[in-house]
């Protein structure tokens, strides 16, 4: 299950809407081992395409270094589908390389109602998981929140 703060969900959806009809992508970093998404990092889609995304390689290097230094991992890796449902494509599955990440898909094909779903992708096998949206991690079962939520 993905437990995630509402402001982070809103930020992913806003990014996907902003870049529509191109696919939007990014990560939400969190402390290693916590499984708790905390730091929203929208990324540049180097492809600028409605059907494909790829993190800009130099931006990715910089962001991955920052995470390394802060002892963070990409807890969520998100991208949007702008004309199809929020389900991983064959391309998504072939690239998925973080077995511990939650792969979040946002579909913006409907201009009014977005669809947001989360998956684990391990060795080419896709497993959908429930998403629990919380106002704060303080009271969720992920445990105590040592970092105050920033609003």
């Amino acid at each position, binding site marked *: 299950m993905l437990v995630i703060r509402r402001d982070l969900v809103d930020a992913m959806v806003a990014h996907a809407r902003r870049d529509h009809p191109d696919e939007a992508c990014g990560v939400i970093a969190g402390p290693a081992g916590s499984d708790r998404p905390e730091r929203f990092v929208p990324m540049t889609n180097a492809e600028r395409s409605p059907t494909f995304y790829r993190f800009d390689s*130099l931006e990715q290097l910089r962001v991955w270094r920052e995470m390394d230094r802060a002892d963070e991992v990409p807890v969520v890796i998100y991208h949007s589908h702008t004309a199809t449902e929020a389900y991983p494509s064959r391309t998504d599955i*072939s690239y998925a390389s973080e077995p511990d990440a939650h792969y979040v898909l946002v579909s913006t094909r409907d201009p009014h109602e977005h669809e947001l779903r989360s998956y684990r992708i391990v060795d080419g096998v896709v497993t959908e998981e429930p998403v629990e949206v919380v106002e704060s991690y303080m009271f969720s079962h992920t445990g105590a929140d040592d970092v105050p939520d920033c609003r």
Partner: protein
Amino acid sequence: MAVTVSIPTILRNLTGGQKSVEASGSTLAEVIDDLESRHAGLKAKLVKDGSLHRFVNVYVNDEDVRFQGGLEAKVSEGADVTILPAVAGGMR
């Protein structure tokens, strides 16, 4: 020539859990062959049909080697080679 290679989490099972390893070579291709001789299986994750696999990004001194000649990219003594899984996908 000795270089330092940073290994991403997903490939550390091939380096005995090591985050960074030493290798030698004056081009990326030579570095990868040298890596393979000590960490069998790595090459297949990095190279496909004679060129760099599209699923990985490789950087030499923080430059993406795709813009430096790919496998022919020059690697100087003491260089830092970083491997990251490419993050990509899409509905196509």
